[in-house]
């Protein structure tokens, strides 16, 4: 068990945050210098008011609640910490709030009034740590089974513990609906899923139907919960990379990059230019692939199988490219901390160029088929529409948010790697419905191709593909066979792992669904102390019942496809 000391309190802070801090009693907010963003340690008693002020003050405007997670420090007097990540789209500013909690008093105010995004995040924190949120209307388990006991992300919970959970205690929703006994038709409650082809994974949708109209609905998730965060704590830093493949498996490479960049930030490692270049190209190809899958399956749900086949051809070719780089098609594990798995193949550039030339034709074909096709327009325009304001409040990011008229893109707002040197646009549409979500993905495929073309024109940088630091990356096999020192480093790195300096980092990349963030805490050992993944589709899917209520049952299926929910990422 590690002994993470309570963090040192520092006093330098930004003026607008200081202005807010001055409004609250001294000592209730302690600012702290973070490695990546400002941090406040907030006392629980003022948390609700502090958040209201932070959200509504025009100087701060923290209008988006990105993430909520907990951390367990068994050695501290205040054992738990609830960690909120706030973001202001207008100012591009971030803030992390930490709320220390004693083990015997784990009650927090529910802040659903400020940010609806917290609905599921608070349930997750309850599930994983046992925090109780005062005022949450539906505080029950979300990722684990109803009959599960204990809180798995606490440090005293044994990761190898097994449960036998049976169906008899399964959750049955209760809907408060007005009486309709004098109506001629009865209402019917139907279950779609958990294993239903239209659910794109394992979700259970329960809907009360009046004819074909959904009057009330609820979703249940957690069927694909794989304890990603708990497993990270029991594996070394490198061993988490294959786990990240399985988050958003449609674009596994972006998850690899997101995780590796987080650890590299903590290690303060400079990734060689060749690896950065290749990571960007492959990330953009992965994004294209993900959008192809999402748009293709959405059209299948609406009955258009042809476009699905057209869109799956570029995907197949991109899988071939990824396979030639790293040896696997789906679960690539192509990144290593500090670079890539191995050198790029000699025909890498030629293959990329062929793909860049090939993909636009397929995108064009699909757009000709459906963009102005009235059958598709009737099915999708105005379906599951959400305004930009609501989308921000629900914590949406990525293409779905941009289809609602808010142009937030991590690549533009917080450029990482070489994105600030590239010429690209962030497409924004204002419909907020399935039709615009579809179109925006098509536009983004073109933007991604534009970026890849620019990167290819710059040429492949020469040099190594992984950082030359024996404390981070394995020495080359030749060195390992021929030099004593390299051999020692090789053994040391595998038996002992990478030692990441103490600290915490939240680092984000633009995933295919939105902002993919990893919040990682290290205690200086070879294993992550806490590794939390901010999955972009988690807040998006929490909106789903609200989106489909009042619509018809067939619209619900199309809108689920348009949101691009990937179970692996949603349930981690």
């Amino acid at each position: 068990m590690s002994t993470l000391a309570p963090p040192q309190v520092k006093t330098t802070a930004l003026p607008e945050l200081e202005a807010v801090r001055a409004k609250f009693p001294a000592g209730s907010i302690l600012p702290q210098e973070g490695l990546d963003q400002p941090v406040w340690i907030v006392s629980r008693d003022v948390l609700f008011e502090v958040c209201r002020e932070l959200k509504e003050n025009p100087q701060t405007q923290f209008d988006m609640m990105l993430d909520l997670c907990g951390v367990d420090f068994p050695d501290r007097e205040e054992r738990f910490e609830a960690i909120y990540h706030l973001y202001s789209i207008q100012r591009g500013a971030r803030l992390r709030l930490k709320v220390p909690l004693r083990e015997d008093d784990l009650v927090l105010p529910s802040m659903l009034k400020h940010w609806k995004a917290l609905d599921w995040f608070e349930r997750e924190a309850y599930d994983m740590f046992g925090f109780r949120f005062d005022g949450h209307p539906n505080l029950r388990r979300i990722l684990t089974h109803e009959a599960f006991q204990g809180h798995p992300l606490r440090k005293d919970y044994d990761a190898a513990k097994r449960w036998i959970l049976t169906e008899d205690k399964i959750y049955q929703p209760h809907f408060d609906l007005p009486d309709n006994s004098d109506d001629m038709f009865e209402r019917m409650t139907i279950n779609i899923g958990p294993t239903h082809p239209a659910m794109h994974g394992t979700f259970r949708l329960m809907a009360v139907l009046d004819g074909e109209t959904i009057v009330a609905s609820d979703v249940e998730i957690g069927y694909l919960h794989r304890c990603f965060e708990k497993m990270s704590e029991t594996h070394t830093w490198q061993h988490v990379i294959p786990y990240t493949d399985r988050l958003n498996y449609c674009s596994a490479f972006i998850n690899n990059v997101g995780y590796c960049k987080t650890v590299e930030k903590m290690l303060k490692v400079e990734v060689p230019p060749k690896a950065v270049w290749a990571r960007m190209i492959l990330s953009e190809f992965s994004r294209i692939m993900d959008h192809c899958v999402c748009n293709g399956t959405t059209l299948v749900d609406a009955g258009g199988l042809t476009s699905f086949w057209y869109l799956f051809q570029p995907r197949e070719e991109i899988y071939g490219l990824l396979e030639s780089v790293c040896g696997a098609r789906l679960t690539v594990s192509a990144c290593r901390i500090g670079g890539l798995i191995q050198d790029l193949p000699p025909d890498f550039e030629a293959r990329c160029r062929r793909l860049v030339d090939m993909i636009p034709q397929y995108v064009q074909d699909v757009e000709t088929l459906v963009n102005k096709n009235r059958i598709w327009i009737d099915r999708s325009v105005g379906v599951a529409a959400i305004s930009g304001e609501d989308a921000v409040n629900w914590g949406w990011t990525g293409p779905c948010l941009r289809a609602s008229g808010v142009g937030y893109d991590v690549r533009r707002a917080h450029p990482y790697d070489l994105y600030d040197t590239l010429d690209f646009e962030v497409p924004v549409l204002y419909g907020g419905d399935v039709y615009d979500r579809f179109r925006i993905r098509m536009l983004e495929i073109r933007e991604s191709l534009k970026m890849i073309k620019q990167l290819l024109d710059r040429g492949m940088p020469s040099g190594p593909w992984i950082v030359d630091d024996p404390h981070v990356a394995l020495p080359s096999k030749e060195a390992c066979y021929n030099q004593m020192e390299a051999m020692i480093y090789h053994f040391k790195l595998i038996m002992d792992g990478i030692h990441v300096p103490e600290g915490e980092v939240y680092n984000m990349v633009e995933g295919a669904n939105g902002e993919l963030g990893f919040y990682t805490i290290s205690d200086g050992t070879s294993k992550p102390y806490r590794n939390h993944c901010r999955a972009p589709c988690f807040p998006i899917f929490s909106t789903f019942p609200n989106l489909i209520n009042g619509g018809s049952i067939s619209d619900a299926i199309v809108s689920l496809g348009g949101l691009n929910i990937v179970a692996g990422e949603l349930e981690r």
Partner: protein
Amino acid sequence: MSQPLAQSPQTTQSTPTRSPYPTEPKPYKPGFAERLYLPLLGGMLVTMKHFLKNLFNPSRMYTISYPEERRDYSHRFRGHHILTTRPDGSVRCVACFLCAQNCPAECITIEAGEHPDVNIEKYPTVYEIDMLRCVFCGYCVDACPEEAIIMSNNYDMAYFTREQSIVGKADLMKPFTFDENQLGYRPRFPEEDVQRSKMRRDAFNLVEAAKQAQEREAHKAAHS
């Protein structure tokens, strides 16, 4: 770091009380031609084009008749593992346990035994990989300091029972995986270096031939 967003910043600064984001969705409005279903004709041309192309040029079709036809995978494919051998046909592995340590899925079981040759010291008496647990990440190959475990590009793995999926030393050293065209992931290892695999295969074949000859001799001796 942040740059202006795509929407107009004026509305946000002049009236901070009003929401800076669109409060109402503005759905797409179809034009006259679209309401008459006219653009469908263009769509039909696209499907017709694809249909004719596939009809007259079936070799360009993307679907393949697996298992008669197979996709070409690169020599980096992470497939079924291979335990490589020394020229005398014995296993190269020295039971250092690095691969088992570096396996995120914890699917490798090794039991070490003492090797008769003092220069080698150890060898695995048992080397098992649970193929149903394995995630084919290639970490074992990265870890191996002896080049004793590499991967083939063979992805045909199907088992009738869970017990069959635990693959032992004999299966991992099977000759079919030694074909140099079937080599897979070997990190930081020249792509063209097939010479070595040829040597391995020749050595294996020699040993195999010697074994068979021995068996034949024994058979003859028993029947004569």
